[in-house]
């Protein structure tokens, strides 16, 4: 007998329900209003009153409307067919909904129950298995999608039978497991998992030891992010947060990409599902959409579902990670998620923390970031969830609760700067304030030495230092004037400009420049550092400026040209002439 209740208070999407039995924190319920059922989640309980946040508009809701509790938390459905899906924050399939407008109370199945999947068994009768062990696999697009022992299974099971190779729907039994108590449990290709609980079915979580290539120079070379690492991109509006994130989504070296459009613009999501089916994944040659799942809760969709959307996205990533895959989760923007928390906290009349955010904001954010990571699976293979979130600080001021809380949790910091954006120096990542803690990891340094070159880390640090010194010189020149400083100041300044224009800046809309593989990044950085190592003799600063501008122009033309093509080589020779 499930608990029932009646609505006794309404403020926007916060509804108070008087209940007739036990309810749990985060338990789901349906509120019936005018023939449709609205999903809601318990967020506070006082006596027999439960405060629930409704995932839909509460227009027309009345006191006395009936409520039915479901005895479970918000869950996602996991199984083959999630890739290339477009879901809302509660994992409703947006593509199978009818009508141009979203209908309140319309919930659609995330998986295609009729589709047949070609199953190949991996386990055999008699095998001892625990949660997340692989029983078989199906091909989802080109990815081997493992069918696993459901995450919720506790303890060891013995495989009693596994279905033979063949085509099955997600709901057909593909294995029977016997528990310690001798009871047989059928397993299908699908399982459910509560989104707010981290999936911990792995052996251990080692430190990340490889970097994830993104093709963006300022990230890969200057501030690399690790596979299984965390990073965040704060920046005022108009600084290119979304363009940078889309570039990472297009080019990131990952098997699975989940994009959580959390409280952002609907047209940005449209851009993804219009372009991604056409664009080609540079690493596999397949269409980008085949490896991408979109969780889309745009800013005009209900606020409570916005909060759920990031958790839904993370759970899907954790599911694919358990198959030994490299997943990348991009959330745009985590500030909107924090604001959703603030709206609810505010309506519940909780005592506010800084800027009216809930006081536990920092804990919630770091818990969420902690769900990313590299894991060692029970079978010895590895899987990773790399997480990059954007933050939209109010007024572009980084001293605000969401940015500060995130800074404590994330290991990479890509600070977008208004000043750079104003000068159209894109990506507007501030080269001095930004950092990657992974660059200090001995494991990562070792990896870079092997993958790129022996002295790579030293070169990167040197380039960073040149940029920093250039900035100091620029300050001096601004204070003392062009004629008031020695020629060497100009030279140092222009060397940093050379690095900025020819390396840090990158045209995300140019077919060639948008994606710069590590090999090319190494080649370009070497060439630039060689110029910077040289000591020049100038008669006046005009001469210095002219020469560097010409070199910058040539290097930029190279960036726009196919790597090592005849045209590219020609530009390289031009550059050599400048230096002769």
């Amino acid at each position: 007998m499930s608990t029932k209740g009646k609505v006794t208070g309404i403020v926007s999407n916060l509804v108070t329900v008087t209940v007739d039995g036990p309810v749990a924190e985060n338990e789901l319920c349906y509120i019936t209003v005018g023939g449709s059922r609205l999903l809601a989640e318990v967020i506070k309980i006082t006596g027999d009153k439960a405060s629930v946040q409704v995932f839909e508009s509460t227009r027309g809701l009345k006191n006395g409307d009936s409520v039915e509790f479901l005895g479970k938390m918000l869950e996602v459905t996991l199984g083959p067919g999630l890739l290339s899906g477009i879901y809302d924050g509660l994992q409703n399939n947006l593509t199978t909904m009818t009508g141009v407008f979203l209908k309140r109370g319309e919930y659609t199945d995330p998986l295609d129950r009729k589709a047949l999947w070609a199953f190949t068994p991996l386990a055999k009768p008699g095998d001892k298995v625990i949660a997340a062990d692989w029983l078989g696999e199906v091909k989802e697009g080109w990815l081997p999608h493992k069918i696993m022992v459901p995450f919720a299974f506790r303890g060891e099971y013995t495989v009693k039978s596994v279905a033979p190779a063949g085509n099955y729907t997600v709901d057909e039994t593909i294995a029977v497991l016997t528990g310690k108590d001798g009871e047989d449990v059928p397993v299908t290709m699908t399982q459910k998992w509560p989104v707010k609980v981290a999936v911990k079915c792995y052996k251990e979580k080692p430190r990340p030891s490889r970097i994830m290539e993104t093709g963006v120079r300022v990230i890969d070379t200057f501030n690399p992010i690790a596979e299984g690492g965390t990073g965040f991109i704060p920046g005022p509006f108009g600084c290119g947060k979304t363009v940078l994130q889309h570039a990472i989504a297009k080019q990131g070296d990952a098997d699975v990409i989940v994009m959580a459009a959390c409280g952002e613009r609907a047209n940005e999501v449209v851009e993804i599902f219009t372009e991604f089916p056409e664009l080609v994944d540079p690493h596999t040659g397949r269409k980008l959409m085949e490896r991408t799942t979109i969780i889309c809760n745009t800013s005009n969709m209900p606020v409570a579902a916005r909060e759920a959307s990031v958790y839904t996205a993370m759970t899907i990533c954790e599911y694919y990670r358990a198959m030994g895959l490299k997943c990348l989760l991009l959330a745009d923007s985590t500030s909107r998620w924090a604001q959703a928390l603030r709206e609810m906290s505010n309506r519940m009349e909780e005592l506010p923390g800084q800027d009216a955010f809930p006081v536990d904001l920092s804990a919630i954010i770091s818990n969420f970031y902690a769900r990313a990571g590299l894991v060692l699976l029970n079978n010895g293979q590895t899987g990773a969830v790399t997480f990059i979130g954007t933050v939209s600080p109010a007024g572009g001021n980084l001293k605000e609760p969401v940015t500060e809380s995130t800074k404590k949790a994330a290991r990479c910091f890509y600070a977008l700067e208004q000043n750079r954006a104003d000068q159209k120096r894109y990506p507007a990542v501030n080269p001095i304030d930004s950092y990657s803690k992974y660059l200090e990891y001995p494991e990562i340094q070792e990896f870079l030495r092997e993958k790129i070159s022996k002295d790579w880390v030293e070169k990167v640090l040197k380039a960073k230092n040149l940029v920093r010194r250039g900035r100091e010189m620029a300050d001096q020149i601004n204070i003392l004037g062009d004629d008031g400083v020695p020629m060497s100041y100009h030279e140092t300044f222009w060397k940093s400009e050379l690095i900025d224009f020819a390396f840090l800046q990158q045209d995300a809309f140019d077919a060639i420049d948008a994606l710069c593989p590590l090999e090319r990044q190494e080649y370009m950085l070497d060439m630039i550092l060689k110029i910077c190592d040289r000591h020049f003799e100038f008669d006046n600063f005009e001469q210095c400026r002219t020469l560097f501008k010409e070199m910058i122009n040539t290097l930029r033309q190279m960036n726009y040209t196919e790597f090592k093509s005849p045209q590219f080589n020609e530009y390289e020779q031009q550059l050599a002439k400048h230096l002769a």
Partner: protein
Amino acid sequence: MATKAFQRTYTQLQAVTKATVTLNARSVANDELATVNGKLAQVVKTKGDAVTLQVFSGTEGIPTNAEVSFHGAPPTLHVSDQLSGRFFNAYGHPIDGGPEIEGEEREVGGPSVNPYKRRQPSELIPTGIAGIDLNNTLVSGQKIPFFADPDQPYNKVMADVALRADVDKIILGGMGLTNDDYLFFRHAFESAGALDKIVSFVNTTEEPPVERLLIPDMALAAAEYFAVDKNEKVLVLLTDMTLYADALSIVSNRMDQIPSKDSMPGSLYSDLAKIYEKAVQLPDGGSITIIAVTTLNDGDITHAIPDNTGYITEGQLFLRADPDSGKVIVDPFRSLSRLKQLVQGKKTREDHAQVMNAGVRLYADAQNAKTKLENGFDLSDYDLRCLDYAKEYATRLLSIDVNITVEQMLDTAWEIFAKYFSPAETGIKQVFVDKYWKKD
């Protein structure tokens, strides 16, 4: 609607604030409308039997024994082709002396478009203003505000843009318009002979501020009728959204909500997003484009209203007075159209994006030179050329009184580049330099 025949009436108020009244009433629906002492009100909160109503025209003169009757439905608008050419108040009633509209009654502030059913905006909206078309190209289905100080001529620019744009309907939502501005719009539309494609919803400064909260929903309900039902291209003008947000903060304050930044309600982002996200390119060809005005306090875009707006809208157009050229210009640094790359080089000439970027970069160099000049340093030859360039660039391209085609804008830009710079100094891709550089 069936419930209309039976209206529940109450006569005992428990509490009255400047914007809200509270009374005991049963089976009241959230968002439902009510009449309090002849004034329109809407349910915003229920707690047990206590119902709080926000009274749109203010609670002056409402006694505790006021008569309250509930309508059983949220705010609605009658929609039909009769809307064209008409002026309405915040409740959707005519203020031009004409008859009431006959047509289907629709709820305002309805549901959102399923993002999957949207189409990618791809049609250029030319305005003739180079600061917009060249540097911040507008696309149908886009939402973009003007950020301007109160002394900038934003309403005039907006009227120019609306009348030059190639759209089927223009819907004006005026919030806190001064009577003079209301008459300006009316005159501008009439004298352009465009009145039959314009629908206006107007709340002037003479009317109560809380009424403004209904204007965007009314205007967008009308826009959705033309865009969804009639597959028309609709342009919605909303001015001034800062006054709309101020009205939001009045209501939330009266309801004892904890204010967040700049004493705005914590839900400001969601409230604004609900309006702006109505901008859409629909699958059957209809579209809603929103151009809004957000007035600033001394150019401060870090205030909660412009800040939240900037995160929602697809860019912003920043107007400022330029002392060098003596013109009002569209600031190339602070302005941005996020959708511009969907049409630049696709619906316009191939060199568009590169010319735009070079133009702005050189203008930035001129600003640096200006700083040097102000600090009393000697200027280099390059600095001097930059300064001359900036003046001509501002006068011939950035100024809001420009009215030329995109092609002419590009040609003008190449001409100015060649006058002051070498190709290398512009940093433009060689193929375009070869093709378009104006040789003497």
